[in-house]
C-alpha cells in the first residue's frame, strides 16, 4: 500500500513537469498551429543556464528561476522574430516542422560542444532533504517544484483569461486574420507566445536541475511528453494541460510499478497513439 501511495505521489510530482512543458507547447501550438519540436531542447537550455548561474555566479537555483525565465523568454522572442515569423509566411508546414527540428539539433549539439557529453548536476544544501507526508517521503526540491507549478498554472490561467494581452493571445489563436483586422499586432503576439512557451520550458528545466542530471539530450523525453499533454489536455486549455500532465506522470509510474519499469516508455507511447486515433475517430463521427 505504501509502495502504491509512494508511486502515486511520485507520479503526480513527475507529472507536474510534463504539465509545465505541455502548457508551453500548448500555447505555441494553439496560437501558431506549429509543433515546437525543440521544446525539450529548450528545457535542456534552461537546465544549463541554471547550472551556469549556480556554478559561476553562485546563485541558488530557486533564486535563478526568474532570471532563467526572462533569459529564455528573450531567447524565444529572438528565435521567433528571426526565424519562425518569416517562415510562417511560406505556409509550408514541412518547413516549419524542420525549422524547429533544426533548432533542436543546433541547441543539443551546441550544448555538446560547449559542455561535453558528461552528466552534470547541482547539489545544494537542501537537495537531499526529504519530507515525510504521512507514510510517503518526498524530496524537498520536488515538493517546491510542484508548488511552483501550481503558482505558474494559476498565473498563466489568469493572465490568458483576464489580461488584455492574454485576451489578444486567445483572439489570435482563434483567428489570426480576424485578430489583425481588430487592430491586434499579430507579430507581437507571436513573439510573446513563443517567448512565453520557451520561458515555461526554461522554468521546468530550472526546477529539474536539483534531482535530474544535466546533459545535452536531457530534454528529449520531456519534449515528446509535452506533445502528448497538448493532445490529451486539449488545445488551448491550461487546466487541461495541467491534468493531462499529472495523468501522464501517474500512468508512467503505475505502469512501472505494475508491469515493468523498462516498458513504461512503450506503454506511454502506445497509449498516446490509441488516444490520437480514437480522438480523430470521434471527431469524424461528429461530422
Amino acid at each position: 500500500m505504501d509502495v502504491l501511495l509512494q508511486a502515486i505521489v511520485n507520479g503526480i510530482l513527475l507529472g507536474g513537469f510534463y504539465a509545465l512543458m505541455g502548457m508551453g507547447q500548448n500555447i505555441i501550438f494553439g496560437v501558431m498551429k506549429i509543433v515546437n519540436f525543440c521544446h525539450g531542447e529548450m528545457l535542456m537550455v534552461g537546465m544549463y543556464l541554471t547550472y551556469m548561474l549556480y556554478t559561476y555566479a553562485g546563485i541558488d537555483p530557486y533564486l535563478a528561476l526568474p532570471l532563467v525565465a526572462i533569459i529564455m523568454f528573450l531567447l524565444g522572442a529572438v528565435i521567433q522574430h528571426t526565424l519562425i515569423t518569416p517562415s510562417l509566411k511560406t505556409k509550408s508546414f514541412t518547413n516549419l516542422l524542420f525549422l524547429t527540428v533544426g533548432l533542436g539539433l543546433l541547441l543539443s549539439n551546441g550544448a555538446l560542444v560547449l559542455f561535453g557529453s558528461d552528466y552534470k548536476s547541482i547539489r545544494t544544501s537542501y537537495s537531499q532533504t526529504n519530507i515525510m507526508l504521512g507514510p510517503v517521503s518526498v524530496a524537498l526540491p520536488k515538493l517546491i517544484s510542484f508548488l511552483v507549478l501550481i503558482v505558474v498554472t494559476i498565473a498563466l490561467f489568469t493572465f490568458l483569461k483576464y489580461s488584455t494581452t492574454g485576451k489578444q493571445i486567445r483572439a489570435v489563436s482563434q483567428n489570426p486574420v480576424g485578430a489583425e483586422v481588430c487592430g491586434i499586432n499579430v507579430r507581437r503576439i507571436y513573439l510573446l507566445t513563443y517567448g512565453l512557451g520557451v520561458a515555461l520550458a526554461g522554468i521546468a528545466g530550472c526546477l529539474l536541475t536539483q534531482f535530474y542530471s544535466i546533459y545535452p539530450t536531457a530534454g528529449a523525453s520531456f519534449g515528446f511528453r509535452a506533445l502528448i499533454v497538448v493532445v490529451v489536455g486539449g488545445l488551448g486549455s491550461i487546466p487541461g494541460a495541467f491534468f493531462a500532465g499529472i495523468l501522464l506522470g501517474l500512468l508512467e509510474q503505475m505502469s512501472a510499478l505494475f508491469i515493468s519499469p523498462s516498458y513504461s516508455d512503450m506503454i506511454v507511447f502506445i497509449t498516446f497513439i490509441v488516444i490520437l486515433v480514437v480522438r480523430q475517430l470521434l471527431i469524424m463521427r461528429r461530422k
Partner: protein
Amino acid sequence: MDVKKAVSGYRRNLTIVVGALLAVFLVLPLIVKTPYIINIFILVFYISTMSMAWNILGGMTGQNSLGLAAYMGIGAYTVCLIVTKLNWNPWVVSILAMLVTGLIAGVIFFPCFILKGPYFTLVSIAFAESMRQFIINSEFFGRASGVGLPFGEDSFLQFRFASKVPYYYAGLIMMVAVYAIMKRIDNTKIGFALKTIREDEDAAAAIGINPTKYKVIAVVISAVIAGFVGFFYASYIRYVDPDLMVQAKSTEFVLPAVVGGAAYVEGPLVGGLIMIPLSEFLRANFARVLPGINMIMYAVVLLVVIRFRPSGILGWYMDSNFKKFIDEKILKKPSLDVLEEYQMMNYESRKGGK
C-alpha cells in the same frame, strides 16, 4: 521534323551529362582507394536512398513522417535474425525484410492514416519509439546489444565482403534503382494522386482520389525501401542495434531531402551528395575537439535553407539564371511547347499505328 530534331538533340545531351555523372561514380573506386572515402560514398548512397524513401511520403504526399529509421531497423533486424537463427540466404531474406516492413507499415499503421498534419508526425515518432523500446526489452532481439551477422569469406551469395568496394557498387545500384522508381512514380497516376493529396485532401477526393488508399500506398512504398536499405546496412555493417532506430537517425534521413528540395525527386540526391561528405569531413577533422560539430553544421545549413530558400537548393536552382544558362547553352533544351508537341506527336503516331 524540326521538333523531332530539337527534342532528340536535347535528349542526347541529357544522356551524355547523366552518363558522364554515372561514369564518374563507376570509376571512382578504381582511382580512389582509401576505404575512408569509399565509406563516405556508401553513406551518401544509402542515406540518400532513405531520404528518397522519406520524400515519397513527406515531399510528395505531404505526410511528414519522423520515424523512418524504425523501418530501416526492422529490415536490418529481420535480416540479421533470420540469417543467424535459420541460416537462410540473405538475398532471400531481403525480400522477406521488405515484406515485413511493408506489412507493418500498411497493416499495423493503418488506423493512423486518418490523422492529419502534425498528428501524423507525432504518431510516426511514437510508433517508431515504441518499436525501439520493444526491441530493447526483448531477449529475442538481443536487447540493447543488438544482433550480428556471421563473418566469413567473401561471398556474393552471402552478400559479404571484406573490401568496401563491392558495397560501394551495390549501394550505387540501389540508389540509382530507387531513383528510377521514384522518377517513374512521379510521372504516373500514383504520383499525381500523391501530389494532389499533398496540396489538398478535399480537392483530391473531389476528383475521385481515395486519400487513405493512396496514403497507404505511399507509406508502404516508403517502408519497403527503408526495409531494403536496412538489409543493405546490416550486410555492410554486419550488425544492428536499437541505436539505429533512434529519432535522431530518422531526422538525419530527412535532412538531405529538405535541404535539397523536398518537392523534387532529385532533391534527396542533391542534398545527400552535398551534405553527407561535408558532415563526414567535419566529423573526421573536428569531432575530437568539438563533438557534434557536424550536426551543428547540418542544423545551420537546414535553418539557412528554410529561412532563405524555402524550396531547397534545387528549388533555388530551378529559378536561377544558372539553370537557364545550362538549359539553353549546354543541354539545348527546347521550349516546353516543343516538348509537348513532340510528346503528342509520338502519341498520335502510336495511336495511328494500332
